[in-house]
């Protein structure tokens, strides 16, 4: 016998010329080409005067508005946006984590009760995240008026849907062997969750939560267009009055917020792994 054993020819997968994936690729490629064809290419693509506006916008990047009163305003707007994002994420985690745990099927012992719990919570999570935060915002503003609570809920609910969905996947995907060992020493499913699932999934749970936190800052800025104040609202005012310098200052604030979250996330993860 020879070592290593020669691989049999049938072991190498042969690609069929047009499998399901190939068809899908063709379809998507075709759709893209078609969408290009629908663009009215020509001198009217950018509306008249648009080129001048873009030039002004870019020129303003070199002289952002830095007067102390405006800086104070930008700082206040940043603070408000960050506060909405933090509060929204708090709501999202508070709702998403318990739903995610149930949706992972980690707590149910019987096959039937697991199926029921998983299907019900997955459905609820899907409903929460199927509706965009802007739509939630309209709903809550209609119901509660222009209050911070409307913004926080509008942000928190769809984010809970996304977080719960991902949490369920992460908690269900941890290595099984340590969990079996915990059950063998008499642990209940709740204890297995605490001592096996959560610790093993924690690094990924944190990474993903921080990533969504960055998204929440972006969303909070957008939500403030609805009239709830914050960076997005100020940007809208600046754009309406063609004060491009202010726009750049506000954009810089937004970038700074996202970078700050990223740094914080890195620090937390570094400590966790150390």
């Amino acid at each position: 016998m020879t070592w290593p054993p020669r691989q049999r020819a049938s072991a190498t997968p042969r690609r069929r010329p047009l499998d399901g994936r190939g068809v899908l690729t063709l379809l998507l490629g075709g759709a893209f080409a078609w969408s290009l064809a629908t663009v009215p290419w020509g001198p009217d693509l950018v509306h008249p005067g648009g080129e001048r506006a873009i030039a002004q916008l870019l020129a303003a990047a070199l002289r952002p508005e830095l007067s102390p009163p405006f800086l104070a305003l930008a700082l206040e707007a940043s603070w408000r946006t960050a506060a909405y994002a933090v509060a929204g994420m708090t709501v999202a985690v508070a709702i998403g984590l318990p739903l995610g745990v149930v949706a992972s099927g980690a707590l149910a012992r019987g096959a039937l009760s697991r199926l029921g719990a998983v299907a019900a919570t997955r459905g609820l999570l899907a409903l929460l995240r199927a509706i965009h935060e802007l739509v939630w915002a309209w709903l809550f503003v209609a119901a509660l008026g222009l209050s911070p609570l409307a913004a926080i809920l509008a942000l928190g609910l769809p984010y809970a849907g996304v977080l719960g969905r991902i949490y369920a996947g992460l908690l269900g995907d941890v290595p099984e062997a340590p969990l079996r060992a915990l059950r063998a020493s008499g642990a209940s499913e709740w204890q297995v969750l605490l001592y096996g699932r959560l610790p093993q999934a924690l690094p990924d749970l944190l990474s993903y939560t921080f990533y969504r936190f960055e998204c929440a800052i972006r969303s909070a800025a957008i939500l403030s267009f609805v009239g709830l104040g914050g960076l997005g609202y100020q940007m809208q005012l600046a754009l309406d009055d063609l004060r491009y310098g202010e726009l750049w200052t506000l954009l810089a604030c937004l970038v700074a917020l996202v970078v700050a979250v990223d740094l914080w996330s890195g620090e937390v993860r570094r400590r966790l792994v150390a």
Partner: protein
Amino acid sequence: MMFVLDAVSKAYGSTVALHPLSLAVARGETLAVVGPSGAGKTTLLHLLGGVTQPSAGAVWIAGRPLASLPPGRELARLVGVMHQQLDLVPHLAAVHNVLAGRLGEWRLLRSLVSLVAPREIERALAALERVGIRDKLYERTARLSGGEQQRVALARLLVQDPAAIVADEPVASLDPARAEDLLQLLTGIARDDGKTLVASLHSIQLARRYFARIVGLRRGRLAFDLPAAAVSQAHVDRLYDLDERADDLATAAAR
């Protein structure tokens, strides 16, 4: 009797891992299971530990049928299993992996609080002291060496305090000196606490030195079951003989 296997067999699909086999292990006995790779050692130990159910035959643990002992607190008081892959939670500090041996006795709230402020820390300390790594109490388990993790797994068993310990290749990943240390520790614990010990090993020398009785497995069958002193070189040669005909001759001679 701590363990009784009555005509027990185990098959995974069409692979027969263990042919019908009967075996009794008395309380306090130390038994080594030896045999080449794939002989069925892990399968046998998993049956003793209540990790898997037999395909046929009956397993009795401390006089109770295995079928009546689902994984849980009762089984945990009777048998503790140390798997070949240890199965610790690498992200937790050693102390929590050790105290996990108490989860069967703890309420949920106590287990939750313990993750922040460890409960019954003196038990964890005593166990880690006994296995010789007391200073690693708050070290993350992933950062411990293979030998230290082995000791954490053993400390968890000490804290669980079952009547019998089943250890699958507890020294497979250790250098010869540490392997002797660990076996000394394991058999010492069994002797001092009156625990039954069943362990699979690859080294016949270690089995003879540290265990009272040796069971040889070969291709899912019992090759021999003897007091350690009665195991001769001929037994060993036959067990590890790569020539498959030797096996057929042996079964033919037995008829």
